């Protein structure tokens, strides 16, 4: 039955298995998709920014997951911290981006008295 369910729903088989990289990837994907949907659906600019944070953190989970020691090759001479370092960079980047985006949002609010992104169509073709 497991086999039947597993073959019908590709990822369902993971529930029964011990936690591995694949599980992390599923969480990252869920985070990513949630972020994208949030960006696409929210009309509030702050909501959109939150969606961006979700997308970035979904990516971070992937980086960290792929940095797992179990995926290291035999005899590798690296520290094995590449994924974590890049995740830290992304966090840094997200902070900078949030600062800039919030400033833009604030300015937009000052000019239009709203943070509705649908109203931000001044550059429409």
């Amino acid at each position, binding site marked *: 039955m497991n086999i039947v369910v597993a073959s019908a729903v590709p990822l369902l088989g993971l529930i029964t298995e011990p936690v591995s990289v694949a599980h992390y990837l599923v969480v990252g994907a869920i985070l990513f998709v949630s972020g*994208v949907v949030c*960006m*696409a*659906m*929210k*009309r509030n600019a702050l909501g*959109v920014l939150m969606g961006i944070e979700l997308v970035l953190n979904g990516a971070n989970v992937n980086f960290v997951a792929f940095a797992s020691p179990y995926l290291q090759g035999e005899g590798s001479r690296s520290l094995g911290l590449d994924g974590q370092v890049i995740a830290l960079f992304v966090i840094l980047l997200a902070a900078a981006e949030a600062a800039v985006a919030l400033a833009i949002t604030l300015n937009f609010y000052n000019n239009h008295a709203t943070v509705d*992104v*649908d109203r*931000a*169509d*001044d*550059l*429409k*073709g």
Partner: protein
Amino acid sequence: MDLASQLPQLLGLAWLLPLASFVLILFFGPRMGPHGRNAAWVATAAIVTSLVLSLVAFVSWLGVHPAVAAHHGGDHGAAHAGDHADAAGHDADHGSHAVQPPVAYSGDWYTLYEAGRLKLSIGWYIDSLTILMFVVVTFIATCIHVYASGYMHDELHEVTDHEVHLTDGSHLHRPGRFPRFFQALSLFCFSMMGILIAGNLAMVFIFWELVGICSWFLIGFYYERKSASNAANKAFLFNRVGDFGMLIGLMALWGALGTLHFADSQVPGPDGQPVSRPGLFSLVRPAETGHALRVPDGMVKFAAAEKVAKTAPGDVAGKVDAWRAEGFGKWLLFIAGVGIFCGCAGKSAQFPLFVWLPDAMEGPTPVSALVHSATMVAAGVYLVGRFFPVLTPDVLLVIAYIGAITLFIAATIALVANDIKRVLAYSTVSQLGYMMLALGVGGWVAGLFHLVTHAFFKSLLFLCSGSVIHACHTNDMRKMGGLAKVMPYTAGTMLVGCLAIIGAGIPFVIGLSGYYSKDSILAQALSFSQANPRHSILFLAVAGGAFLTAFYMFRLWFMTFAGTPRDHHVAEHAHESPQVMVMPLLVLAVLAVVAGWTLPGGFGIANLLEQSRPAGTTETVQGGFAFGQTLTVPAEYLSHEGTIHVTATMTAFATALGGVLLAAAMYLWRVISPAAIATIFRPVFIFLANRWYFDELYHALFVVPAHRLAAVASGIDQGLIDPFINGLAWTARQVAGIDAWIDRTLVDGLGHATASATWSAGLELKKLQTGSLRQYVMFIAAGTVALFVLASIVFRSSLAG
């Protein structure tokens, strides 16, 4: 400062001042005061200064060469023996019968062109004739400038020309042309003096054409009038005919003799020392023959070119005399003389080229007085006088006959003319005929003397007629009459002019200027007739002309001023002219009286002219160069003596008196009815009233064939050349049409299609740019998914592998 350097400076300055005035008025005329009023002052100031300079030159001349009574007989030249400026080549002893050339100063200011022996230069030739003519021209020009500043005042504002009808039936309105008139007048004075001072024939020819163009400007002053522009063109064309002959003469002289200079000139020789190069006068009348006429070596060699070619170069010089004796070159000299005379006949309105002068009266009256009676038309006579030494007796005979024909024809036409200016115009033609005849029969002084006196009284007569026209606004004498009461000054001065032109005077005592000059012409003609009985008709022409002159001049005066007004409309408006116009009349009237007098002590125009008498023409000459007949040109002094003088004077007096009496009988006392005479001699009357049908003759001979030729040429042009050109143009047009279609449809179409495709694509793509952020995110997401799907399809095999 001696005369030789002083005279060219004085007269040169006098000559150039009107040019300066012309240039000034040309560029600044319209800005000279309101409507260019001050242009008259500029022109007058220039000509008055010229007059003063000419008078200074005149007085300087008299100081060195006092005019005294000429010595007739064998001792000629003794009076001038000591005062030769151009003594080079003339100081040889000519034996007991020494003949001295006249005193003349010559030189060059500027050389235009020089190649080998051929030389064109701006130079001067000054003798007493030059100075006298300078004084006469500048004096009359001054009077006429003053007169014209009054006469032309209509031109100071808008002018309505009543003789020009526009297509809508109204009259022409145009701005006044006051400065333009004085500009042309100044240019004319400059050109006229250029002829007078010219030191060579080329320079004469240049200024000859310049006076021609000035005449054209001035006749055509009212160029909107068809008659005026036609008259201007007619005058110009007739002069061209004459000038063509003149060019032939010039070429004959230049080709054969290599010089056009009148006098000898100094040129640098091969060793740097100046050598004397003979001019025309000393080539034709060399000193070694006692200034007797001789065909120059150059012409002999030119005519005998074949023989020269067969002779060794060293022997040519020795054989020239033999060839000359055979008659080589004499025709060349004849052609040269007749050619130059052709130009003179055109300019001086001689038969058969005289028909332009009466039409030239379309110009303003001051112009008629200055250009077409006193000065320009006299230039022809002046040139014959200046060129006299080169003219052979045969040429002189031609000139005499042309003069006689001219004076007779013009006088008969003047008898029946009714336009006051035309009577004077024909009178001018007739008097010019007198001058030519006088020169032709050897009366060098007589002809030029008459030129000077005629200049005074004819300009006076024209200015008087201008005054009459100014008052009556008509030229037709039949509408005048009785004007003496309202215009006393004009009538009086015109009477003086009429008396002067008919040569009135108390025989052997005193007379008006015309009395002296006309008597000397009659006397010379009589002297010539006696010497050459075959040509006695010349004297009859002169005597008959004198009678006709008296008749038509007094017919004019009686019709205009005497009796009762014929047209009350005209008489009521008549008034004496303003003072600025009357003053020149009075001045000229005085001169018309005194110009011929010889003062005690011998000063007189005739004696002054006698100083410049060409060498070798003092004594009676037997000749007959080209025609092989013997002609005797009697010495002029013979006509002053004995029976000839008495007969001539009595003839002149009798004919003049007869003419005046006949005119008085017909037009003053009305004893004889002019209408009855016209009826009796109806064919003659009609013949004369139609001016001998000369205009019709020329029309049929030249104008109609020219028109026909023009019609044929125009037919060829329109029938052959135009269709060809039009066909070419049509073909080019068709080709261009195809080309244009390709251009528009293919080339332009491609460009337009590209542009519109780009444009519409842009318009479509623009719709994607909605400005909705969430949509963009959707696109990004969808695009990313699409990329992944695409990559998985494309790289299926490698992924699977």
